């Protein structure tokens, strides 16, 4: 039973944490485009404006979060495997 509890806690913590992060990150693009368009259009690195940088970052961020989830899920899978064995007993 302890394994189940531990798995639940870890999973919940991780999912909540990462989805809050993701929601903030993704929604801030349309929000900032809508409310601070001037700042977003200022050129920054490599002659690109912030709007473009942020847009590209969204692509990279999607891959990054996917990868983090993949790694974390691998860890959780070990707990799940333990649970499965405990249930089989």
């Amino acid at each position: 039973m302890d394994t189940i509890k531990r798995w639940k806690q870890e999973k919940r913590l991780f999912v909540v944490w990462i989805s809050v992060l993701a929601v903030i990150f993704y929604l801030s693009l349309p929000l900032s485009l809508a409310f601070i368009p001037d700042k977003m259009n200022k050129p920054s690195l490599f002659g690109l404006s912030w709007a473009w940088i942020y847009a590209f970052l969204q692509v990279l961020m999607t891959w990054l979060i996917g990868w983090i989830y993949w790694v974390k899920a691998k860890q959780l899978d070990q707990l799940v495997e333990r649970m499965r064995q405990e249930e089989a007993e």
Partner: protein
Amino acid sequence: MNFTYFLFFVCIVICTLIITYWAARRSKTTIQFYTAAGKLTGFQNGLAIAGDYISAASFLGIVGAIALNGYDGFLYSLGFLVSYLVVLLFVAEPVHYLGNYSLGDVVCARFPSNQMRWIMAIGSFIISIFYMIPQLVASGLLIRLLLNIDYSTSVLIIGSLMTVYVVFGGMIATSWVQIVKTILLMSSTFLLSLIVFSFYEWDIHALIDEVKVGTPMGDQFFMPGHLLTNPLEVISLYVALILGTAGLPHILIRFYTVKNASEVRKSVLTASWIIGLFYVMTLVLGLGTAAVIGYDQLIAADSTGNLAAPLLAKALGGDFLLAFISAIAFTTVVAVVAGLVISATTAFSHDIYHHIIKKGKTTEKQQLRAAQWSALAIGLISTLFALGLENINVTFLVSLTFIFAASSNLPIILFTIYWKRFSQAGAMIGMISGLIASLTLLVLGPHIMNIDNGWILREPLFNLYNPGIIAIPIGFLGAILGTFLFPQKDPINFERFYLKAQTGVEMKERR
């Protein structure tokens, strides 16, 4: 139609038919027909998901949108990509663990009743059909433009091809057609983007400068705020795109085609990589079109901008390249519609015929036969509809599908998996309120009510093209209210259910 076009076209048709023939010999059981017997690897399934998802509208439409609208066009494509995080984090694995063949299986694992199955089946069915008809119409128009053949002929060809794939080859043929499509699409967009870069001698600044010359917007091209002027519209669109994918049945049933959770994750990740790379490349193509072709010529060819990629190919590589790109666009179309046919078929033959009409008492052979017949019927009916609805407002139907998926399917799936108190009544009310809200808001919105060219020539009552921001909360609220008003009478052991949904571990009944 010249000979080069014809040859490529025939080549694609033959290839997909070979795949179907090969798959037909492996589609002898129900599980093979519906889910390819779970034999796909995560990577293959990822390719197939991408093939299922990237429609001709994405390939041609987004290149055009970027060429015409610059930054906003790209923003549009980002929403499609980010939506895969929702799928990965919340939906993919539970769907894999809870269901067998259809989306109805997932919800009925918690609320096993005929009403629930009806609701889910109809929901999936409507979404698939409403998504398929505009795809067929759009691709009919597209093929007419590309290959210069009749609208009805092109719809007939695509309609019969998709029906043949699904009826004979089931999920196996569909998956492999989609995989082939993804590989072809990715490699050809990649090479085409390379040609664009090399055209400007690998100098991105030269490309950007040329874009500014080619478009009437000049510097403004690279700034947001053209396609979507209303901030609310931006957010609304974004939300609908991000949440919509996680409610699309033809994407979700793909998670039955792999064998375990790890492969499910791998398929979502593969799909997100491919889709991400694809949209970055469409950006290059879009910029290339703006630079090489220019705004005026593009609008002159087709006012929607859908011909951006073909025009670019023709300018850069002549007829040969154009023919090849057109063939790819054709493959894209058939792969997507085949995926939709199979999801509609599953909803009908598995949920309605097998579970509701026959009460789960059909033999293996009957099930397979029923699935094939319903695939045939669905293929026929949607082809007929598409033939008749040449002038339908395509964007209206596509946004309806996404908003409907996000406001009715998604709340039910999410609450079923994650909310302990959720009740069957809540699910039904949520589904219906989501459907009604999205339909009403769209009808009252500027898609239909439009002073210039709407079905109803008057000022729109509701002034958003994308009503997601209102409709989606209504769906969720409906589900919540329904649950509080009509709580579940005999709740199941939620802990046990939750564990099964998340890990596939079946806890023993202890109490």
